[in-house]
């Protein structure tokens, strides 16, 4: 009996597996030439009636009450059609490709561009008739490009940009030298030089470290690719070829990227060993608050964490909550990133300055291909990305709009970031799935680079050539990770 079952199992499995049977080429019933445009196939312009739209929103938007205001306003506008938008009640990072085919996914989702665009390959999201949207022209081309993809030989926009996420410089105004207006403001523009360019920030950091008080100037965990890669981009490096769409070409070592790596190496020399691992990422908020660090680079969404820590610090010194918070808000300044020296030499006096191209992301709305109501979903996306809702989102969440009218109306940091985006100084994170293979090789390089600043006799990176070779190894690792096992 056992032998019989054994033979039966072996026969059934081996027939299929060992011969590799089955069609080598799937019969594809689609004939692209006979297809109509996908947009006309999906959207007929008639709103579906009496439908419920499940919306996947960002957790902060739900917690801060923005999402409720959004769906209430939408539901009021479309009540005559019986369209009701509700919270999809799912994890904000849930994977549509896993849930959608089985009917569990949302109808509309709000995620970062790299998350949304990974759904394009399997057509898990619908393209969007972007050019027919009222606010199309308010969104810069760089933002739209993050959602552009070619499918079946045609270019489509797969989402609508809402916010920009990128790095900013956070610093303590009260830790500026008392004489900054006379000695640290060469161009007399009432902005301290050390937050305007990296050479002065380096010089100021060095002076703080050399004072022997145990304090530091600029601090950042350098392993973090999101914040460190911008230094490579600024001197000609890039992630993938053809504007981050071609994984056949990896270019972190391209141009003079090694000069950017050398800038990081110089910055590490005015930090301590905590720049090697994630220590500064973890304790940066409290160290800025207690005055150990003068400045660090991070994303604007953590502003409230800095304020919370600084308020607590002031409260410890005997201040009341309100006055402590007010003082914290006054002393913590968020500004654009300092300019880099074109030469890459942070010790150069009066250098020619170039902008730092920081890595960023564009969050936006997309429509699931598993929705039963594509027209109503499109109406929701159009409503949620209208000027009024973008302004409300900015007001409640402090997010930076990717729409020119809203950014201009908001002013301040929003306008700075938006201008950086328009001018191409924000390198939007690649929207192709191969991006997942970039992190570990690049993280290893930046960790090694930071470590090198603290090695004594066995330094690895003593010349620009060695830095270039190090970056070439990273490029090769990324290429291998992507292509070695690809089918």
């Amino acid at each position, binding site marked *: *009996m056992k032998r019989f*079952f054994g033979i*039966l*199992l072996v026969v059934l*499995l081996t027939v*299929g*597996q*060992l*011969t*590799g*049977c*089955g*069609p080598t080429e*799937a*019969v*594809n019933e*689609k004939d692209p030439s006979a*297809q109509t445009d*996908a947009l006309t*196939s*999906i959207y007929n312009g008639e709103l579906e009636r009496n439908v419920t739209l499940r919306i996947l929103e960002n957790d902060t938007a739900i917690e801060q009450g923005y999402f409720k205001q959004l769906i209430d306003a939408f539901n009021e506008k479309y009540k005559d059609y019986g369209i009701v938008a509700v919270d999809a009640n799912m994890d904000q990072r849930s994977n549509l*490709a896993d849930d959608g*085919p089985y009917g569990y996914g949302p109808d509309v989702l709000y995620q970062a561009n790299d998350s949304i665009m990974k759904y394009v*390959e*399997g*057509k*898990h999201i*619908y*393209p969007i008739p972007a050019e027919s949207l009222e606010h199309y022209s308010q969104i810069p081309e760089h933002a739209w490009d993050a959602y552009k993809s070619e499918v079946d030989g045609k270019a489509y926009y797969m989402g609508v940009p809402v916010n920009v996420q990128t790095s900013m410089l956070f610093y303590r105004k009260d830790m500026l030298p008392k004489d900054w207006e006379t000695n640290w403001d060469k161009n007399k523009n009432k902005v301290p030089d050390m937050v305007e360019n990296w050479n002065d920030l380096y010089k100021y950091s060095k002076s703080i470290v050399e004072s022997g008080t145990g304090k530091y100037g600029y601090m950042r965990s350098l392993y973090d690719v999101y914040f460190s890669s911008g230094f490579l981009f600024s001197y000609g490096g890039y992630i993938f070829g053809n504007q981050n769409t071609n994984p056949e070409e990896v270019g972190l070592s391209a141009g003079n990227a090694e000069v950017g790596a050398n800038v990081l190496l110089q910055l590490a020399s005015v930090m*301590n*060993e*905590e720049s*090697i*691992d*994630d*220590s*500064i990422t*973890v304790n940066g908020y409290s160290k800025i608050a207690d005055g150990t660090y003068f400045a660090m680079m991070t994303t604007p969404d953590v502003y409230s964490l800095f304020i919370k820590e600084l308020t607590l610090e002031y409260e410890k010194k005997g201040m009341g909550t309100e006055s402590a918070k007010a003082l914290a808000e006054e002393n913590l300044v968020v500004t654009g990133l300092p300019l880099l020296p074109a030469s890459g030499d942070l010790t150069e006096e009066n250098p020619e300055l170039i902008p730092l191209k920081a890595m960023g992301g564009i969050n936006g709305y997309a429509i699931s*291909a*598993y929705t039963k109501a594509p027209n109503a979903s499109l109406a929701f996306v159009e409503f949620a990305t209208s000027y009024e809702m973008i302004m409300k989102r900015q007001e409640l969440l402090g997010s930076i709009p990717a729409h020119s009218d809203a950014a201009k109306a908001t002013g301040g940091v929003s306008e700075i970031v938006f201008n950086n985006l328009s001018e191409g100084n924000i390198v939007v994170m690649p929207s192709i*799935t191969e991006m*997942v*293979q970039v*992190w*570990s*090789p690049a*993280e*290893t390089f930046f*960790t090694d680079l930071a*470590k090198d600043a603290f*090695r004594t006799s066995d330094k690895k990176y003593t010349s620009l050539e060695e830095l270039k070779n190090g970056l070439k*190894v990273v490029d090769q*690792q990324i290429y*291998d*990770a*992507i292509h*070695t*096992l*690809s*089918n």
Partner: protein
Amino acid sequence: MNMFTRKIGKNVIASICLMGLGQLMYGQIGKGLLYLAILACGVLYAALRGFSDLAGFFTLGTKEKDAWFGIEGDNSVVMLLMGILFIAAIMLFISLYLSNIRDAYETQILVEKGGKPRTFLEDVKKLLDEKFYKTALFLPVIGVSIFSILPIVFMIAVAFTNYGGNIVPPKLVDWVGFKNFIQIATLSKFAPTFGKILNWNLLWAVSSTFLNYFAGLGLALLLNKKCVRGTIIWRAFPILAYAIPGFITLLGFRFMFSYGGPINQIIMDMGYRAIGFLDIDAKWMARLIGLLVNAWITVPSIMLLATGILTNVDVDQLEAAKIDGAKRWKQFTKIVFPFVLFSTTPVIIGQFIGNFNNFGIFFFLRGGLYMDGYFLASDTDLLINWLYNLSINNNYYNIGAAISLVIFLITSMISLLVYVKSPSYKEEDIYR
């Protein structure tokens, strides 16, 4: 009993031709109808979807879904799963068919001996009495088949497909034979890294198993001493370490050994430079820390196990050895240790396999690094971590399944070898 040595009666032949017919001819209406119902269900399942599931198992789909143009297509992964289910159902059906023939034959023998065919009620009573093991094991066997065997068979099948990377549903998956294994074996970049990682993996598995086992046993022996006071409290401390989820402990240790962690803060306060316990240059230091942290997590369970086993050590034998002049070390090596080793060999093998495949320890302590001289791995990565970097990180389920099979072969061979050579296998009757 061999059914071919006797003459087969017409009722048995009837059961061979039609499931349950023989039973009906013996007047066993309930059982006959039950068998007929099983046959009807089987035929219905096969006709309605079984055969198409089987065809789908071989083709893995022929039409690709396109949501944009409303084209419904095949889901290769579901087809693979349903195909495996149908094959399992066929096997179940065949075994039921054979049981039907055997039952008819047993009834024939009973009748030939002058007995009467059992009624349905008598059969049920038998299942609750002398054949109770069948009743008791029925649900667990079904559970093990669905939750344990089916996923393994699915994983084995995936190793022979191109499922992964860019080929995930709605794209159609195909069978590729041994291509994945050939790819792993022939990639020139793989071999040096595989060798290095395998060597470290074996060293890690042996040393961590050895350390955990003897530290646990040592702790149990220590707390078993009558002179130790407050043993309950002392035993509770390691259990607390054991009770905290492993990954929380690992993240805690990662922080403790980081540059900004408390250990480096103490070192710096003493006027020394911070030490990179787990950083990019800390190959052996990180390996040692991994070994100790793993011991911190695992030793309590071994201690508890050894404490239980030590209560069964023959005290008279120890007393006799003492009278004969055996020193404590001799008593331990000749009486206590062989007894504990005999009882715990399967546990040691389990520990060895668990340590060999210990994914979390270096993933949480020192993940995210690719070292020079390694292909997409670091010098502390174990095979399971490398497998993650190569496959899961990249969604190459097929390669992941193929490497899993290779790891399975390695660990099963080592485990089998150790078990066969162990006293637990060789001297099974000694302690009975």
